[in-house]
């Protein structure tokens, strides 16, 4: 879809409504610095970026860039805004209020979908792609790769795996399983699952032989526990006391305390520097981001080490592993604290039993008052959230002796009580083992799911890599073709985009510089070459981005490209973008003039902006910017205007020709010096041209008689019909037609029929003469 027009009203440099009338054609706009060319590009960017213009982003421009977007001299109540009309008649209109808020209307939804990076290239952005990091290059190219859906899928899979891990409580469950395993080993030693199951089956047979039969081991444990509790209730007070003391003695409080201490110490050594590092990361991140694009080495914001940008990704991975280890330590600590709290809770429960009341009283008479007092003052839930060293010391010093005392008191117990206690513990710990087996199966399922999701993510990323490779190679072919057109026979070759082997989401540029392979153009290319390469990459991406005809805006992109290569850009636009709408804006008068000669007039329009005078006058078009094609278009209805346009073209173009050919003009006083007419230039060019303008025939140069005759004919018609067209408006269509043809033919005298270049394209024979590219046509100054 082509752009029909862009209209501005008090937007940026514009004052009263001014329009860039493209009529769906390509256009070259010339304007001196500050004339307002870029205001039209700003309008495009404003629409494409939903009200943002990147080069205006500044602390003083305001939240909505309200201090930068409206014309500084917009009168009270002025209509500030823009409108972009497309060739299909659809339109986007934006009204901007003084506070920067905007109201968009119209049906031009199509344009809002265009990608700015593939539509507009400004002077300051030419080398942006090259100077960006590998990740930024990948991001810039991603929409072109057509892989956004796969990239989204890969990222979603990564996030799902993480959420599954968090939701399932995988880490905590692993910790609990580890505790259960320790308890199992302490009680059952190395007994296998089947030996434990057999032991429970024996006990079940022994105590519950008359009850309902079941094969479910957990149900057996449940039935057993109830039967054992029943028998315990029926036993003597001594026996019950003994069993309760065995329960107390079985608690491994000392190990729990040591477990918390060990993990606390490891956690402290991991977390303290981590907190400091995280603060440093925050402080360094801003500086780091600035340096990343301009330096080969950067200081890692996490550790401060100097590293190359290339290895930064792997360094980040190392940091991630370290953080994961710290997280594991944290979870181990949490598990140890949970174990301790559970043990303290169990101890409190056991000691509160009525069966132990006499033992407790006995103990209080001796020296264990501190133990009971400490235990009474310890709330397991509070301990879970804050378990400090002082808690551990108190538990170890005061409470552990209670367990030792209980253990000592179990000596010499009746055999029936010993058996009852042992069978009860076998049942309870056996049940815990069985639950652990079940939990382990659940964990296996979660881990299987995670492996599955992660393997999918890996597969999607690999596919992304393979497909990117193929698209990137296709773009590379275009870049190489364009580079070859701009830089034929230059020893900078094999320009290519490539995906580095060792990095994900990364793309870089390689080339061969005088036969030596280079991994980045930043290593060797001059600024001009870099910009030229940047232009090729932009055009290659723009070409790929849309098979449909979308416009491309090139705003002063040749500023650091030398004259010879600028000519090649014309060739590139004609060869590769003849089917696209291209809007070239330039402040280079020579290049503008060159483009007027070289670009196909049926596809291209040429407009000139007047120099900017005041914000109140705003952007103004010059009348002298029309082409012969525009003039011909007026023949049916306005032959006088068509003839007048032809005269104005000749006034402008002949001034350029005379300047390039160093034609000596008679001195005119003051401003008249700059207001010579076509006739004055033609008179001198005809006089000089008969001797200076020469074409090659065989091995020698001869005068161009036909060319001089064409110049004379144009001069004659300009004096008669051209003046009539301008002043009395009574020129008729056949006269205007003939005038236009004659003027066009006259200007073609200075263009070589063989190479298409103008006669002043290259210096030849020192300072004596200039010639076209192939040397077929020349102008000898000295003969004038």
């Amino acid at each position: 879809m082509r752009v029909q027009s862009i209209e501005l009203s008090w937007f940026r440099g514009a004052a009263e409504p001014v329009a860039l009338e493209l009529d769906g054609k390509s256009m070259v706009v010339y304007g001196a610095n500050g004339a307002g060319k870029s205001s039209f590009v700003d309008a495009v960017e404003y629409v494409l970026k939903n009200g943002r213009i990147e080069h205006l982003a500044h602390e003083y421009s305001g939240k909505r860039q309200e201090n930068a977007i409206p014309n500084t001299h917009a009168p009270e109540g002025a209509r500030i805004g823009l409108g972009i009309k497309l060739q299909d008649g659809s339109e986007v209109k934006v009204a901007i209020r003084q506070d920067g808020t905007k109201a968009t209307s119209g049906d031009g939804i199509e344009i809002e979908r265009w990608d700015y990076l593939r539509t507009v290239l400004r002077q300051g952005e030419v080398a942006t792609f090259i100077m960006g990091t590998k990740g930024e290059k990948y991001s810039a190219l991603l929409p072109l790769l057509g892989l956004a859906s796969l990239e989204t899928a890969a990222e979603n899979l990564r996030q799902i795996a993480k959420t599954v891990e968090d939701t399932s409580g995988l880490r905590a469950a692993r910790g609990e399983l580890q505790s259960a395993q320790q308890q199992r080993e302490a009680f059952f030693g190395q007994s296998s699952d089947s030996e434990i199951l057999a032991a429970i089956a024996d006990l079940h047979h022994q105590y519950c032989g008359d009850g309902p039969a079941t094969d479910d081991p957990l149900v057996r444990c449940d039935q057993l526990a109830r039967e054992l509790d029943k028998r315990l209730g029926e036993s003597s007070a001594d026996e019950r006391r003994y069993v309760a003391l065995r329960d107390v003695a079985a608690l491994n409080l000392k190990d729990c305390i040591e477990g918390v201490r060990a993990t606390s110490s490891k956690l402290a050594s991991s977390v303290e520097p981590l907190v400091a590092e995280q603060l440093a990361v925050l402080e360094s991140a801003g500086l780091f981001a600035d340096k990343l694009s301009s330096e080969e080495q950067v200081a890692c914001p996490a550790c401060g080490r100097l590293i190359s940008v290339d290895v930064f990704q792997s360094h980040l991975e190392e940091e991630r592993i370290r953080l994961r280890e710290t997280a594991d330590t944290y979870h181990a600590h949490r598990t140890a604290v949970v174990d301790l709290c559970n043990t303290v809770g169990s101890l409190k429960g056991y000691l509160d039993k009525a069966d132990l009341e006499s033992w407790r009283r006995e103990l209080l008479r001796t020296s264990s008052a501190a133990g009971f007092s400490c235990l009474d003052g310890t709330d397991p839930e509070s301990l879970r959230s804050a378990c400090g060293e002082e808690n551990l010391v108190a538990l170890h010093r005061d409470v552990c002796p209670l367990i030792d005392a209980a253990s000592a008191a179990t000596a010499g117990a009746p055999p029936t009580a010993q058996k009852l206690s042992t069978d009860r513990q076998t049942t309870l710990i056996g049940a815990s083992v069985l639950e652990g087996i079940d939990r382990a199966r659940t964990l296996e399922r979660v881990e299987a799911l995670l492996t599955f999701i992660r393997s999918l993510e890996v597969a999607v990323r690999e596919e992304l890599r393979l497909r990117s490779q193929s698209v990137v190679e296709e773009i590379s072919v275009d870049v190489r073709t364009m580079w070859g057109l701009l830089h034929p026979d230059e020893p900078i070759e094999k320009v290519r985009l490539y995906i580095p082997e060792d990095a994900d989401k990364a793309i870089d540029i390689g080339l061969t510089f005088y036969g030596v392979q280079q991994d980045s153009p930043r290593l060797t290319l001059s600024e001009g070459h870099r910009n030229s390469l940047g232009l090729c990459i932009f055009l290659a991406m723009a070409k790929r981005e849309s098979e449909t005809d979308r416009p491309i805006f090139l705003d002063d992109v040749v500023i650091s490209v030398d004259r010879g290569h600028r000519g090649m850009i014309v060739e590139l636009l004609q060869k590769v973008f003849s089917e696209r709408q291209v809007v070239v804006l330039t402040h280079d008068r020579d290049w503008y003039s060159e483009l007027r000669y070289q670009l196909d007039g049926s596809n291209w329009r040429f407009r000139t902006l007047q120099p900017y005078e005041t914000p109140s006058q705003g952007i103004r078009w010059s009348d002298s910017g029309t082409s012969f094609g525009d003039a011909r278009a007026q023949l049916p209805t306005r032959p006088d205007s068509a003839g007048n346009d032809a005269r104005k073209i000749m006034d402008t173009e002949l001034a350029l020709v005379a300047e390039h050919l160093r034609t000596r003009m008679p001195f005119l006083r003051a401003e008249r010096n700059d207001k010579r007419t076509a006739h004055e230039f033609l008179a001198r060019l005809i006089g000089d041209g008969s001797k200076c303008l020469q074409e090659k025939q065989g091995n020698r140069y001869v005068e161009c008689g036909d060319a001089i005759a064409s110049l004379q004919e144009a001069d004659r018609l300009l004096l008669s019909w051209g003046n009539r067209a301008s002043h009395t408006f009574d020129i008729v269509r056949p006269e205007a037609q003939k005038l236009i043809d004659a003027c066009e033919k006259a200007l073609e005298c200075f263009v070589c029929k063989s190479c298409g270049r103008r006669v002043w394209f290259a210096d030849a024979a020192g300072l004596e003469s200039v010639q076209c590219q192939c040397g077929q046509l020349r102008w000898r100054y000295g003969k004038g």
Partner: protein
Amino acid sequence: MSDDRDWIAVRVRKAARQTAPVTEAAALLLEGLLRDRLVERQLTRAELAEVAKELLAAMDSKQTSGSAEG
């Protein structure tokens, strides 16, 4: 886009056979999600939690994808 979805479906089935045993229900659920929401946009935190919950529930079903494939 539809090519991508088909490709993803094939990958899900292949991964379900080749990696650790996931249930048929979980494999189908993920395949459905990858044909739909997961390729269209980045899920929100709440949506991720919901998907994770559904996947974990789907893993509780008995039949594994490998066994379903025979």
